């Protein structure tokens, strides 16, 4: 009887999940998600994840001080990653809209933008995982700044859309 009860519970949760999805979509929350972009100061982010900066702090601070400062830097970097991740979703939305454009060039840029934005989003997840690990072991692991350049590329692609629209 127990497997039957488990099966029933799993099915109930699944159906509840479906209902929530329909409700969420009917309220148009997808559009609300993409409505705003959060400004991200990438120079500050790159500074936070700069290996040279980290090396400088490591050599000029005591181990305890370095761990404390590095944890604060990682926490702030995580906030930047969260903002980049949210923006990646919004940029994917921009790309999806541009994909339906009558101009094939804009449509192709939109397609490319969606792909890059999704890739950025996946990178954000990986970076957030890495940052969480770095938070636990600040002296062993360093946060990566590679995501900043990826973000720049995606933003540049989105920013290039208006010129093409006007053309």
């Amino acid at each position, binding site marked *: 009887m127990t497997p039957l009860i488990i099966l*029933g519970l799993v099915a109930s949760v*699944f159906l509840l999940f479906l209902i929530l999805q329909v409700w969420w979509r009917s309220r148009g929350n997808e559009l609300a998600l993409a409505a705003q972009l959060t*400004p991200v100061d990438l120079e500050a982010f790159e500074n936070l994840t700069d290996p040279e900066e980290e090396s400088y702090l490591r050599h000029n601070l005591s181990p305890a001080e370095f761990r404390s400062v590095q944890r604060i830097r990682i926490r702030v970097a995580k906030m930047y990653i969260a903002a980049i991740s949210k923006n990646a979703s919004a940029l994917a939305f921009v790309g999806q*809209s541009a994909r339906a454009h009558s101009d094939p060039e804009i449509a192709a840029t939109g397609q490319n933008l969606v792909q890059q934005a*999704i890739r950025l989003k996946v990178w954000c997840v990986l970076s957030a995982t890495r940052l969480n690990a770095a938070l636990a072991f600040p002296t062993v692991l360093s946060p990566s700044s590679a995501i900043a350049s990826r973000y720049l590329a995606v*933003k540049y692609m*989105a920013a290039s859309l*208006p010129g093409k629209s006007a053309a």
Partner: protein
Amino acid sequence: MNFPHLIWFYRYLWIGPHVLLLAVATAMFRKGQHRHFPIFFSYLIFEFVMCCILWPMAYFRAPVEIYWRFDLLDRAGDIALRFGILQELFESSAAGSAPWYRNVARMRNRVTVLLVILASVVFAALYSSSLNHAFFANYAIIEAFNVAQCGLIVLLLLWHRFLGLRMSPFAFGIAVGMGLAMGLEPFQIMLRYSVPARMGMIVDMMNMAAYHGAVVVWFYFAQAREKVPSDSTAALPQLIEQAADMGRIAHL
């Protein structure tokens, strides 16, 4: 227990949704959706053809062994096509054509295998007393695949939500309809084990009603106009402006 007053309703629930499948297929064909979702289109046709075979067999009381074989063929075909439909839905977003997306697809295949194994364990426990009979063993495998596919639908919807991608209304409708049809099957299994055998017809009717609901959902979304792109196009200039502003902030 016989329910003579329900027999016509029972027949309708068997035939009605399958006739409605043809309407869904026609709506898809008219809107050119069959080119975007060819496997789902094939699934609709397959379901209709199998109904045309199974219903007369049941009505004219064909030998049970032969009926079971066709029923198993129907269910196995359903399972295979549904995996194809899920893949179609996963790749319906723009990311589907990207070369790097193959890695994601590989990861998804591994998750699928994991879900099938997990579901198989649950169903092996559930059917453990009957697994020595080939018929029950086959059905246990089919139900395990069914539950695994429910897991994939959850993954599909969460994946799109996580990426911030908008599913087209029809893709969303396909996912919800499939979820409705498959998600209620475990309840059917629960009831079949819990209620007396003479109530089996009622349990069957609940299952068929769930499938009918799924077909209505597909029909609704096949007819629905895509409203979202116009809204998103309205939001596009503002978002592009913001993206450009962000570019300036970052000294692009």
